[in-house]
């Protein structure tokens, strides 16, 4: 039976409405909201599985291989938060599902108008998600910073759109671009880079990831980042002649290096992983640049897809560990290896993966991305990416050292929270991804070959 092409988005929309209707009831059944959130996310994922590659295309929305692939990433990234979302707060559930819907729309957006709508549809709930994720004014301060930065980015995008429209008389793809159009395309790209966390547009990111609850940071760093990557890729497709594409590798390299350097000096864990996320975003930008520069080959797409898939496991895993172990700073990490061996071992595997140490999936991800860069003869950005991996390894190893080699100072008591299973699951996932070359060839994944 021909599936209704936008079934996944429909499932999510139903989820949003369901959440709000549950809100109407005076005493909603306790686990209903959480079940609803999980159901709609998993439902969307299952529906996306069945879609054929070129199921639907219209001037505004299309469903191609990339959009389906990225939808998997988005839903994979959203799963942990769906489970952990505050069961009683129906508005929060609706906002969360709305954000996920926005992201999947962005994944399927065909023209600029749709992109703008999806962009805002995704961002506005995110601001509120950050604001309500944790008690205290730190979350509020982060949300406000996020709001204003996002607002300015949205405005820049619209200005870019207007300029682009003035030049190309349309909102869809166009070949030649006059300087006016080039400026427009660049401004739109700036909005995408903002969402990704490219330097120097990423000052908001560490504050948001640090202040919000770990699971929300996990969601933002995986689902939001994947959507932003595809958003940037769509822009490159729309304006293949745009001059900003040539600058992407340089911006990526700069972001990767500054991210790693800043993370080195962080004491608070969530802020450290925020900068680590920036560093990985830098690598992704290099990847998109390499993909766009060398004729948008499928190998480029598969490398980016693989990287984001691996990063989903790694990031969600690390933030889940932070939630589980209750450690706020690196000092509190000292000696925790003995206290919770299983979770700490899984966390160690994830750290090795983030550092790009074989035989984990993290290594495969970095390898494939750097490979694309080298193949597109972008030697210096590749070297910068490699250097950022090296610097990042310094703090990952530092954390492993704190975890296992240091003596625990007995003063800090430790009561394990939920989420150990998730950390271990993510670690298992990342190790499985490590065997990707064998895995891929035996599964003969269509996208990859």
């Amino acid at each position, binding site marked *: 039976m021909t599936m209704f092409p936008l079934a996944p988005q429909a499932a999510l929309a139903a989820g949003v409405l369901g959440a709000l209707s549950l809100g109407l009831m005076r005493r909603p059944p306790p686990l209903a909201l959480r079940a609803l959130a999980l159901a709609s996310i998993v439902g969307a994922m299952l529906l996306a599985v069945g879609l054929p590659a070129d199921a639907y295309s219209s001037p505004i929305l299309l469903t191609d291989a990339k959009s389906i692939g990225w939808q998997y990433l988005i839903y994979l990234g959203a799963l942990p938060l769906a489970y952990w979302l505050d069961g009683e707060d129906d508005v929060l559930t609706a906002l969360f599902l709305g954000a996920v819907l926005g992201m999947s729309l962005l994944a399927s957006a065909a023209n600029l*108008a749709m992109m703008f709508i999806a962009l805002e549809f995704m961002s*506005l709930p995110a601001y509120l998600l950050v604001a309500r994720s944790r008690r205290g*004014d730190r979350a509020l301060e982060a949300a406000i910073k996020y*709001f204003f930065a996002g*607002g300015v980015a*949205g405005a820049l995008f619209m200005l870019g*759109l207007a300029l682009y429209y003035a030049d190309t*008389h349309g909102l869809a793809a166009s070949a030649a671009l006059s300087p006016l159009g080039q400026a427009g395309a660049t401004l739109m790209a700036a909005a995408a880079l903002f969402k990704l966390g490219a330097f120097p547009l990423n000052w908001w990111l560490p504050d948001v990831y*640090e202040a919000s609850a770990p699971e929300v940071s996990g969601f933002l760093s995986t689902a939001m980042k994947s959507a932003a990557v595809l958003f940037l890729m769509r822009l490159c497709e729309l304006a293949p002649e745009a001059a900003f594409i040539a600058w992407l590798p340089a911006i990526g390299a700069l972001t990767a290096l500054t991210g790693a350097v800043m993370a080195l000096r962080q004491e608070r864990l969530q802020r450290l992983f925020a900068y680590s996320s920036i560093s990985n975003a830098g690598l992704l930008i290099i990847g998109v640049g390499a993909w766009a520069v060398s004729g948008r080959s499928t190998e480029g797409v598969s490398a980016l897809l693989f990287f984001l898939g691996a990063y989903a496991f790694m990031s969600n895993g690390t933030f889940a560990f932070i939630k589980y172990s209750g450690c706020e700073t690196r000092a509190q990490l000292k000696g925790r290896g003995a206290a919770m061996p299983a979770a700490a071992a899984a966390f160690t595997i994830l750290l090795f993966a983030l550092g790009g140490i074989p035989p984990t999936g993290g290594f495969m991800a970095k390898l494939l991305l750097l490979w694309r860069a080298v193949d597109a003869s972008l030697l210096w950005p590749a070297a910068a990416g490699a250097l950022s991996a090296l610097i990042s390894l310094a703090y990952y190893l530092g954390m492993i050292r704190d975890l296992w080699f240091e003596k625990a100072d007995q003063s800090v008591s430790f009561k394990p929270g939920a989420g150990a299973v998730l950390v271990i699951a993510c670690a298992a996932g990342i190790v499985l991804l490590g065997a990707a070359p064998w895995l891929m060839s035996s599964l003969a994944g269509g996208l990859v070959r």
Partner: protein
Amino acid sequence: MSLTAVVWATTGGLFSFGLAIVVLRRQLLAMLLGLELMLAAVNVSLVHHAGMFDDAEALAVVALVIAVAAAEAVVGLSLILRMRRGGRGADAALLTELQG
């Protein structure tokens, strides 16, 4: 000067004015207004060019922009009100706890 030049002048002026407000002012409320001003500036250009290319799609976009600006205002105001209710004035200078 041709109409298009005038339009671009107004759009650019309004946009940069709004941007200046957002970047320079410390009052959160004022910054919110600046944000709205920037979006409004873009509408001017869009409407003009939609007319020139008589393309209804752009007008639909203008409508959407106005809707989004409204939604943005709602979210912005809710955050700012939450801050004022917490007893801390709506002043950007206070928001420096997260840094480094």
